[in-house]
Every structure is written in structure tokens, then in C-alpha cells.
């Protein structure tokens, strides 16, 4: 098991290398001379030349790439053009809110979507099933910002149950932290909940046809034990897979959600960096997100072995 995880980590290296290559090329794919871009509109030709040399942009591409990777491996993601702060510092400051938002959304999704999918499969074809699946289509079709503004209007402005926007670190108490995250998490989770509920229903429908479910019923088990132990554990692998793939949805959605609810997280940083053409920051964030995504999928492969004893590495 441990050797498998190690092998998988080694196997992610080429993936990360390719991602890094793309991220690095950003600077070159973007229209215009990177040095000119970095120097800004009011720079003199001498300024541009100075920047070119200081960034090593006059050296061959592969050498530049190599030294960039070398620096990253040593924990140096470069320096922001706009703030002159190290990119790693800037990311570090913004990591907390985004991580909080993603974790709360993930938990909310699993707690809501999986039982909904199970019930829909159990009552397949009934009114309950149709209502749940109707909501799923609805949730899937609405953009995050529409849901976000709707929720903020109803629950924050009209009912005044929850704050409109902002973020409070966990260090200042659990409820203040959670209070600010509920609406963003619901908005961000909508699509995700719809997706997971659908895949749970589809997988459960198939599992419920299996012989061992008939055996479980013949043993006198109650409906709950059959659905949530005998069936759900068998349906877990596809569900966990989609939860993992869905993390990508969350990352994309977080950018928009953070803007809607004014959460000072990585999503906001990303947008700011793009607007300012702050390439080192963009590179750092994209690299981080890719790394997280690869890591999550590795975790999911490990979870497989926990839910299905037939999967061994």
C-alpha cells in the first residue's frame, strides 16, 4: 500500500512537469513581449531591456524553463510584478479562505447529495424521485453567480439570517467562520450536489438490481441497512470518483463565488492577477491548483481500497 502511494507520487511527477511547462509557456503564449508586458505601458526601452536581462528572458527557452523549475523546487515561486511580494507569501495569505470554502462545500455536498441520490434510487419513478431529479437539473443549470446573488438577497438582505459577504478566519471562532461560509458554500455546491446526486442515483439503481441485495432482503434486513450499508458501499467507487473529478468544478467555481461574496481567497487573487497581468502570480496559482487536483485524485485512488476490498495495489 505504502509502496503504491509512493509509486503514484512518483508517477505524478511527469504530469506536474507537463503542467509546469504549460504554465511557464503562459508568459510566451500571451500576446506581446513578456518583458514589455511586465514593464508596463510607461516603460522606456532601457527599462524593458533591464527587465529582460534580470528575468533571464534573453536566454534560450529551455534554459529559462529549467531555472524556473529549479527555483520552484526550492520553494521560490517568483515575485509579484505588482506588489513585489513573493508569490508564495501572497498565496499563503489567501489560502485559508479558499480552503475553508472548498472543505465546507465538499462536506455539505456529500451530506446532502448522497442521501438524496440514495432516496431517489430507492423510490425510483416515484414523485420523490422526480422532485429530487428536478432539483438536480435546476441546480445544474443555474450559474454560480445567479444562485449566489439570489441566496445573498433572500437570506442576507431580506431575512438577515446570515452575513452578506466577507470572511472571518477560523481562529476567531467556529460560528463566525461558518456563518460567512454557508451561503457561498450552498451557491458553489449547487452544481456539485446535482452532479453527485445524479451519479449516486444511477449507480445505486444498478447496485439495487444485484443478487446480493436480494440476499440482504432475504436475511430480514431493514431498508436502511440495505440501502446505506449493503448497497451504498458497493456504489461508492463511482461516487467517490465523481466527487474527485468534481473538485475541478469547485476550483473553477470558487473563483466566481469568492467574487460574489467578497471572500479574500485565491479566487479573488486569481482574478486580480489576471486583470493586472501579474504573470508570476498567475503561474503560481495555476501550478498550485494543478498540484491540488493531482493530489486529490491520488487520495481518491487510496479511498478506493478502503471501500472495495477487491481493489488492491
Amino acid at each position, binding site marked *: 500500500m505504502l509502496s503504491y502511494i509512493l509509486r503514484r507520487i512518483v508517477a505524478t511527477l511527469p504530469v506536474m512537469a507537463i503542467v509546469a511547462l504549460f504554465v511557464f509557456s503562459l508568459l510566451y503564449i500571451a500576446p506581446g513581449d513578456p518583458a514589455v508586458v511586465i514593464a508596463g505601458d510607461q516603460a522606456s526601452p532601457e527599462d524593458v531591456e533591464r527587465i529582460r536581462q534580470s528575468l533571464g528572458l534573453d536566454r534560450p527557452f529551455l534554459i529559462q524553463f529549467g531555472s524556473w523549475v529549479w527555483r520552484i523546487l526550492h520553494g521560490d515561486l517568483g515575485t509579484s510584478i505588482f506588489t513585489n511580494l513573493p508569490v508564495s507569501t501572497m498565496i499563503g495569505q489567501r489560502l485559508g479562505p479558499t480552503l475553508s470554502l472548498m472543505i465546507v462545500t465538499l462536506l455539505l455536498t456529500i451530506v446532502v447529495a448522497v442521501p438524496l441520490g440514495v432516496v431517489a434510487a430507492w423510490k425510483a419513478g416515484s414523485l420523490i424521485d422526480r422532485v429530487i431529479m428536478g432539483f438536480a437539473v435546476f441546480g445544474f443549470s443555474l450559474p454560480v453567480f445567479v444562485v449566489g446573488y439570489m441566496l445573498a438577497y433572500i437570506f442576507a438582505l431580506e431575512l438577515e439570517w446570515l452575513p452578506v459577504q466577507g470572511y472571518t478566519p477560523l481562529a476567531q471562532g467556529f460560528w463566525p467562520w461558518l456563518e460567512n461560509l454557508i451561503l457561498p458554500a450552498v451557491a458553489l455546491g449547487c452544481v456539485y450536489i446535482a452532479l453527485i446526486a445524479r451519479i449516486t442515483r444511477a449507480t445505486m439503481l444498478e447496485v439495487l438490481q444485484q443478487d*446480493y441485495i*436480494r*440476499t440482504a*432482503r*432475504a*436475511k430480514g434486513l431493514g431498508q436502511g441497512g440495505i440501502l446505506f450499508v449493503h448497497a451504498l*458501499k458497493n456504489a461508492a467507487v463511482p461516487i467517490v470518483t465523481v466527487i474527485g473529478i468534481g473538485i475541478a468544478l469547485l476550483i473553477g467555481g470558487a473563483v466566481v463565488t469568492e467574487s460574489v461574496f467578497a471572500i479574500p481567497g485565491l479566487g479573488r487573487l486569481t482574478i486580480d492577477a489576471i486583470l493586472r497581468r501579474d504573470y508570476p502570480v498567475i503561474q503560481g496559482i495555476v501550478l498550485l491548483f494543478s498540484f491540488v487536483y493531482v493530489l486529490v485524485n491520488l487520495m481518491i485512488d487510496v479511498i478506493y481500497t478502503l471501500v472495495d476490498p477487491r481493489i488492491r495495489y
Partner: protein
Amino acid sequence: MALLEVENLQTHFRTPSGINRAVDGVSFHVNEGETLAIVGESGCGKSVTSMSLMRLIPEPPGRIAGAIRFAGRDLLKLSDREMRAIRGNDISMIFQEPMTSLNPVLTVGRQIRETLMIHQGLDKQAAEAHAIEMLTLVGIPEPKRRVREYPHQLSGGMRQRVMIAVALACNPKLLIADEPTTALDVTIQAQILKLMLDLKSRVGAAIILITHDLGVVAEIAERVMVMYAGRKVEEAPVAELFRSPRHPYTQGLLGAVPRLGSSLTGTARRLAEIPGQVPDLRKPITGCVFAGRCALATDLCRQYAPGLEEKAPRHVAACHYAAKGAVAA
């Protein structure tokens, strides 16, 4: 006294193309400790009958009517909760496919423990100890290790032994075995049959054995009920049925069994087949259900369904032309 009395059992399924009368008016009984075999070809309703006894038919589209009296109580009148208390406890079931009938993601021990914990109220430790005992009883070596294994780590025969352990864990009064040996190798089949007989005498359970394998019937059944197209067409003690089958369908079934070594002893004959197919159960059948495939059928058979008639002591058959009294087969 009869442990189980089934009266006019009708299990129908609503389908888009009409009502499928999978079981249509079947009555039979099983005495305590007795082994009754239900035989017939695929689609004759024998599995649906057994599933109906456990009320495992999904309703809708299925609908079960008639009466199923088990130890005096009509199972069809019980609530779901009362029925659950009977399943796996008083009546348990073994299925055909040991490969797919055990849950692949739960340990063998857990699957045996479950019934003990639900029905006997044992705690986890006691149930685990009993599970190990059951595995020993069904002849699984190293039960302490096996109890923690998953079904995919066991062979087909081993899995069927586990199924038997699950079924017998709560000392049921009735065991329904639906083609328990069909999916197994011949050598394993004999072992499993012997095991079932051993345990039956130890536990004292009655058995309903669903099968199309007449060799198995001869080996372990005391009484045989022959089903065709959702109805009972003949019933007799096993020796009597093999000696003098009355219904042409039963005669056809017995004639379709190959005899080992017959080509060597010079007694080889062409295997008798039963021509034609089982009638469509979604259409109403007038006359005898077997008339379409029967060599003896006349206009009488096609117009009037024969009732079950006692042709010899404890031997009933539904045929206008089946001889009464003793016949030489």
C-alpha cells in the same frame, strides 16, 4: 402437522404487454423436517413461487394473492416489519449464484453476523463467535481466518458453504434452496448436497428445494411437486414419481435425463426431448397448459383444463388421460 401451507398462490406481474401470470393457483404444503422438491423447466414459476413465500417479489409490478400459512400465520397478512422478523430467522433462503449472492464489499463474518444480531439480539462478539462456529459447521477450514475474508477470496463451493452458514445461522424452521448446486462443479455439487442433508438432520429444518436437476431430486427429496407454466401439474412421493410418472410432462422430463454409460451397456436410446415451448403466460390459457406440447392431447385437453386428481395414494396429477391406480412404467 404442516409447517407451511400454501393455498391457491397467485403471483402476477403487470407488464406493458399484459398481466404475466407467473404463478397461477398453486397449492402445496411442507411438513416439519420434510424435504419437498419443486421441479420444472426455466420459466415454470418455481423461483417466483419461492420468492413469493418470502414476499421478496417487488410489489408493484408484482402482486401476490392466496394464502401462505407458516406455522399457522398467513404471511401475506403480516406487516413489513413482522415479515422482516421471519426472513432469515424462521425461513431462510439459499440462492443459485454463490458468486453474486454474497455482498462483495463486506466480510464473510459480517454477513453471517448480521442475521444473528438482527434476529437473535447477539452483540458483535457473540455473533462473531457464532459465525466462526457456523463456518466450522459448514466445513470451511481455518474459520477464524476466513471470517475476516471477503467473498472474492473464496472459491464457488466455499461461497455456497458460506451462504448455507448465513441461512442456517438462526436455526430456521424452513430452508428454501433455489437451485443451490446449479452453478457449481459436479464434484462440489455432491459435497454441498451432503452438507445440506447433514445440517438439515442436525437443525431439523424442512427444505424446499427448487431445481431442474432430477438427479438432485432423487438424492435428497422426499416429495416432489412438478410445475409447468405457473401451475402444479403433478405431485408425488419421490420414489413413486420416478417409478410411475402420470403426467405426460413429467414423463417427458424424466425421459430427457441422459443415463450415464448407456452407450457402453448397449441400452442407449435417443434422448427424448419435449417439443415446443412454454406458452406465453401473458395470454389467458384455455384447456390444459401442456396441451400445445403434448403428444396425447385431444380436443378435450384443448378445451377443458384438467383438475388435479388423485391417481394413486398421495399422488396427484392434472391430466385427463393419466391412468389411475398402479401402472407399470
